[in-house]
């Protein structure tokens, strides 16, 4: 069957009310679920799965993909409005999104998040359609040594999100690395820092840590000193993102999209590291890098492009190799299998019509995301107008509810509050939370892949330099670390004489 035939077959499968309805419903459900703190995109997809059992394969899968894409974008809404990432993927959006909302520019930040998300989504989908084969073979050349070097390089992001003091950032990262070691040791299966408590055997729940670190400190701060916040509210203003803003950030959006595509194509990384990497690259190359972390629109754009760029690309290993890249795609593979479809190279021959139908559906989903996202923003933006005395208690209830729902565990709620106090003290002593989170996400990946690589080679470190991919990331790491040290020395030199002068 020729390409055109397949395309037409695919079109005929998608071009019906059922498919569009599924896609639209999916995106709407996803945006809404993503916007609820603690209700992550993963949970939304998992909950939708049983509904697809009875649907046509293509309709069911489009529904799940809609939820996935909507969920990743939806997470940015609470990240910007109430400093609570709705999904882990939108943690990087908090860094600049929330300060923007504080400055009364929530509408602008939300609009930029949507535009960046849709652009990245489209680029990601096109990458899937055009380069699936190439990127899939690239993904398969990623073994533990390659992963290790990639993670090592990604840890240099910490320098970019540490804010004013690298030392404080490093302190925060260490704390994150330490807490990430709780749970079962991957290689030996022994308990680490579980103190005999069965609840700790699975490690600290990521969502609980995330919400504890970002949302709870704000609430504690308000309880601590309610006078400052008395009756205060932030006005939305009439701020809306302009085309000039979009054009200014366009380079960062495209860069973020490509970072998302590459990291998404490699199984096992996920959207959060991609968002942080995109953010730190945007900061590194931006002329207003000093404004990053204090409310820079480009930061929001980069973070959202980074996480939505992953959404289409994770389907590359799924469709081309049958490998799930993260938890969400694992659920989607489950849906394929329930319908008797087996993703992999043969599917491009046996079920080419379904593949093309999916491609068409994906492209349409970007458009749906744009319209449904706009509606959602206009609905949710009034959250910014609610006085804090009313808003914060409501947020607290939502947080507790969401964290409990992840694992039906009251212990997780305790973890959230404990992390809330940690976050509060970090806030007071101006220790940034982002490095903590990056270390918490990347630390286990770094460790596991290092130890797997050592098992492969019989403890010979030579394996960490085994091919061009590892060399590439080693070089990037060395260059970045060198640049950080040089910038540090420069900054100290500049400050040095000033201090002496001020003393005299």
């Amino acid at each position: 069957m020729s390409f055109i035939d397949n395309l037409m077959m695919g079109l005929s499968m998608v071009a019906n009310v059922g498919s569009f309805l599924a896609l639209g419903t999916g995106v709407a459900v996803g945006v809404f679920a993503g916007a609820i703190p603690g209700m992550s995109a993963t949970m939304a997809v998992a909950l939708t799965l049983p509904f697809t059992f009875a649907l046509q394969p293509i309709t069911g899968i489009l529904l799940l993909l809609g939820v996935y894409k909507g969920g990743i974008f939806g997470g940015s809404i609470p990240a910007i409005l109430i400093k609570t990432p709705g999904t882990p993927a939108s943690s990087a959006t908090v860094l600049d999104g929330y300060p923007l909302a504080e400055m009364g520019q929530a509408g602008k930040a939300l609009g930029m998040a949507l535009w960046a998300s849709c652009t990245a989504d489209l680029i990601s989908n096109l990458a899937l359609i055009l380069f699936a084969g190439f990127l899939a073979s690239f993904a398969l050349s990623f073994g533990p040594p390659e992963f290790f070097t990639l993670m090592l390089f990604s840890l240099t992001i910490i320098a970019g999100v540490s804010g004013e003091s690298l030392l404080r950032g490093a302190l925060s990262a260490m704390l994150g690395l330490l807490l990430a070691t709780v749970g079962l040791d991957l290689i030996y299966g022994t308990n680490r820092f579980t103190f005999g408590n069965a609840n700790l055997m699975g490690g600290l729940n990521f969502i609980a840590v995330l919400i504890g670190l970002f949302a709870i400190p704000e609430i504690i701060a308000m309880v601590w000193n309610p006078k400052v916040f008395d009756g205060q509210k932030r006005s939305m203003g009439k701020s809306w993102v302009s085309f000039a803003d979009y054009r200014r950030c366009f380079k960062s959006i495209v860069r973020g999209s490509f970072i998302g595509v590459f990291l998404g194509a490699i199984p096992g990384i996920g959207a959060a590291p991609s968002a942080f990497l995109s953010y730190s690259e945007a900061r590194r190359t931006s002329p207003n890098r000093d404004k990053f972390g204090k409310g820079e629109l480009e930061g929001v754009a980069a973070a959202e492009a980074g996480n939505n760029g992953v959404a289409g690309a994770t389907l590359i290993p799924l469709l081309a190799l049958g490998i799930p890249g993260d938890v969400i795609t694992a659920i989607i593979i489950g849906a394929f299998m329930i319908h008797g479809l087996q993703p992999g190279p043969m599917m491009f021959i046996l079920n080419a019509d379904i593949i093309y139908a999916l491609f068409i559906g994906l492209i349409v989903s970007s458009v749906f995301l744009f319209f449904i996202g706009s509606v959602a923003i206009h609905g949710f933006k009034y959250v910014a107008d609610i006085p804090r005395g009313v808003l914060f208690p409501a947020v607290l209830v939502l947080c507790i509810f969401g964290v409990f729902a992840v694992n039906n565990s009251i212990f997780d709620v305790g973890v959230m509050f404990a992390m809330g106090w940690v976050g509060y003290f970090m806030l007071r002593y101006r220790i940034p939370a982002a490095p903590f989170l990056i270390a918490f996400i990347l630390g286990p990946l770094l460790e596991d892949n290092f130890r797997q690589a050592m098992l492969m080679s019989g403890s010979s470190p030579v394996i960490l330099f085994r091919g061009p991919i590892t060399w590439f990331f080693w070089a990037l790491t060395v260059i970045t670390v060198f640049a950080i040290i040089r910038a540090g020395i420069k900054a100290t030199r500049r400050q040095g004489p000033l201090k002496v002068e001020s003393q005299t």
Partner: protein
Amino acid sequence: MNLTKLGMACALTLGMMTTAALAEYPDRPVNMIIPYGAGGATDISARAIAEALTEAAGTPMVMSNVTGAGGATGSVAVQNAKGDGYTMLFARVGSHTVNPAMKATLPYTLDDFRFVTVYEINPVVCAVTPASGITSMDDLIAKINEGGVSYSSSGVGSLLQLAAVMVMKEFGIGNPLEATVHIPQKGGGAAATAVLNGTVTFICTNSSALAGFVANGQLTPLLVTTPERLNGFDAPTAAELGKPALEQLVGWTGIAGPASLTDDVATKWGEWMATAVQDEKFLAVMEKAGSVIELMSPEEAKAFIDGQYQTFRKLVDDLGMRIEG
């Protein structure tokens, strides 16, 4: 989920107010714990039977994934629950025979649970990539004797790890732990990826996890543990290869309550399951996943699980694989 939960909470309060203390089981929704993540073999199996079970029982079954520590977190939640039949567990081979056999520090033992049934059996398949040049178990064993062979698993104390070791032991490798390298991965998907990208040489896991890769020609199956040849897998059975003992090596899903579960509840569950496994939609989903539906009575289930546990425990003790820390 939030709405369901809310509904459940309302129904719960309502149920408590309107019914007497001695009301017949079940008078409110039953909380079903799935100890593994969404999209996995246990989850799909559980959610496939949920609807049929709800119908058979006449009360909603609220499914919740309580994940972590290789199924231990969810299992502990049920171990500590009341034996009133309102908190039940989807027990799985990993959480209830492999883990108890391997981990000394596990917070539960088999005696902490009362099994009402085992309803699904998944055979185990061992596979390699075509690029490895291995086409039969004999090739694989020869390669292992040469050295440098490794295998992946979804983590320490998983069925995948024990399956690989048990197969090697049966095929005459004296000490599989020294002859090969075990490279644990995070989860079953990552374990399959490790074979595909050449990180490890082979994998032994449930047929459902490999069906797609075998159908696509990405992996070559070497052995299946069913008594008869398995549809879609062009590989000899354990018995054909003269190792019938390997037929013990299967994955399974069952339903269990805490040890204090009452007889009434256990009987009720027996009736519900007998109806639920007849459900056509459930059967269709399970068949596509490559599972065999085999409903066991509580006694059969207990004998089956104990038997598998003893086999695994002996292997673990013989090789000194038990994890004490």
